[in-house]
């Protein structure tokens, strides 16, 4: 038999065709495969805002002058503070409001504020910030300092404003307004993709075992590789549909930039999808029921979110956490996603990550095929 004829007679083809037919019939699962990532993207994208704006803020203006009102306006202009309409009447009230969580910050301007200003003694105002949430408070602290500096500059006589001896000009590249959705949404593509693919892949295999069709398949001459590839390939398409849906939503709803080559991104996505599906196959060889497959699949969710750099910068992690992170395919895919989408990174910048993902995919697939035996022992 020629190679071509042998290829044509491979059990891979009927397996592939069967999987496609079953997938088309299972409308609910198909809708879930696409709908769930879309919903999760919207939830994640809107909820995860690491830059904090509109912190509820109480004002205690004991000065009640145009100068104090100008400072309050400057603070409000930073967008970090959302001033409560009714001002506080005493410091005790301010403290109570912060302890009770009704206010996350407070502006206290002492009665001497305007007088000190006029006498050129340097006036002081206080911004109290509830720093129990460091993420929220750092934005407020920055905003307060910014507003203080703005007021100081406005009040200094023009003659005094000279060139400062040292200035450091910070230019935030790629995300000048520092919106977190720009950073988070590409990450969500990877997180959702890996977890949903691992779970649906393992369930697809375990379902055959539960229904008794796997026993029947094992008795046919189909090879392990044909069986596994026939199961994997349709889900590669599902993975690409998911990527496209999430990226489109990211673009339309969150205005995530797409600066680099989409072709490069889609090409680099293949080894990532493959690696995730291979992990799913591996999971299917470790569990007996669909419920177990689901649980084991979700086990991957946490390290994916915590250690991959999706939410927390890996640079800040202790070395062991970084090592575990390096063993997660998502870590490398995130670098590709953010590199290509946000920084217009070309192949020269991401070929290493592509190589690592390809090695992951091959490794997991070999492991899965080896662990999958054509027996029931």
């Amino acid at each position, binding site marked *: 038999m020629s190679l071509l004829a042998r290829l*044509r*007679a491979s*059990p891979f*083809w*009927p*397996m592939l*065709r*069967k999987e496609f*037919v*079953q997938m088309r*019939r*299972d409308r609910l699962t198909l809708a879930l495969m696409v709908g769930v990532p879309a919903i999760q993207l919207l939830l994640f994208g809107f909820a995860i805002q690491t830059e904090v704006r509109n912190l509820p803020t109480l004002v205690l203006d004991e000065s009640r002058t145009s100068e104090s009102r100008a400072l309050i306006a400057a603070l409000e202009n930073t967008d970090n503070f959302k001033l409560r309409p009714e001002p506080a009447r005493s410091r005790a009230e301010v403290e109570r409001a912060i302890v009770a969580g009704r206010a996350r910050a407070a502006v206290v301007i002492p009665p001497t504020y305007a007088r000190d200003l006029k006498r050129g003694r340097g006036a002081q105002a206080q911004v109290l910030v509830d720093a129990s949430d460091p993420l929220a408070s750092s934005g407020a602290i920055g905003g307060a300092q910014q507003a203080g500096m703005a007021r100081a500059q406005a009040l200094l006589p023009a003659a005094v404003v000279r060139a400062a001896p040292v200035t450091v000009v910070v230019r935030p590249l790629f995300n000048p307004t520092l919106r977190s959705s720009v950073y988070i949404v590409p990450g969500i593509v990877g997180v959702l993709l890996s977890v949903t693919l691992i779970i649906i892949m393992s369930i697809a295999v375990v379902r055959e075992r539960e*229904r*008794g*069709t796997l*026993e*029947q*398949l*094992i*008795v*046919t*001459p*189909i*090879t392990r590789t044909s069986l596994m590839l026939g199961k994997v390939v349709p889900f590669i398409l599902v993975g690409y549909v998911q990527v496209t849906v999430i990226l489109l939503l990211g673009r339309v709803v969150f205005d995530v930039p797409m600066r680099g080559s989409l072709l490069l991104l889609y090409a680099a996505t293949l080894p990532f999808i493959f690696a995730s599906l291979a992990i799913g196959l591996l999971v299917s060889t470790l569990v007996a029921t669909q419920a177990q497959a689901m649980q084991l699949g979700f086990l991957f969710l946490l390290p994916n979110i915590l250690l991959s750099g999706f939410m927390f910068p890996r640079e800040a992690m202790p070395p062991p956490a970084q090592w575990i992170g390096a063993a997660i395919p998502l870590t490398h895919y995130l670098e590709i996603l953010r590199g290509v989408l946000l920084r217009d990174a070309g192949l020269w910048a991401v070929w290493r990550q592509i190589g690592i993902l390809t090695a992951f995919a091959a490794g997991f697939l070999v492991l899965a095929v080896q662990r999958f035996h*054509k*027996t*029931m*022992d």
Partner: protein
Amino acid sequence: MNGAAIRTTGLRKVFGSRVAVEGLDLAVHRGEVFGLLGPNGSGKTTTIRILTGLLHPTSGSAEVVGIDVVREPERVRTRIGYMSQRFGLYDDLTVLENLRFYGGLYGLRGRPLQARIDELAGELGFGGRIGQMAGTLSGGWKQRLALACATAHRPDLLFLDEPTAGVDPAARQQFWEHIGRLRARGTTILLTTHYMDEAERCERLVFLSAGRLIAEGSPAEITRQFGAPTLEAVFIALQKEVEAA
């Protein structure tokens, strides 16, 4: 080629501390319908699973269609058909799609595949049901479809594990008609059953109890040997004997 479709010597299978099959010596001749009888848990299904390469025996050897099934299960698999108790059909595929899938796994493609499906559909009388989802078929039709799928590649040897369990008498009758056709073509058939009228149709039988072979021969030989009027009486007597021991 010698005359044996199946030959096992000293076959033994242990699950943990439970012995499922113990020292089983079987010889099934080519072209015969061979019955594996015994109560639930006597080792019938385990024996079939070893012979189809689904389970590794703990010890002993098994030759199927002249090939060592323990060492070369894949070579055996192109020559055998297997119908499990659970039928192994895809409920969300139609009758036609199930047939196409299983035929395709055995390398059938294009026109030869279609011709074989037409032939099976005709013999088993699928008719208008060809486009029906397998999951919506009645038990009798599921069983016939499973048989068609297991024989799509015209195997030399067919394993049937309780093929007629839970099927009405008319469907069983039609099922046996098809078995008759397969036997006329020279297919060797090994089946397990709890129905003694089906056991009567076998050329030779063995009784298993607790994994051991306790009787062997043609239905007539066995009834004569035990001086019982029917196979059913033999079956019950043997079982009582084992339980008393």
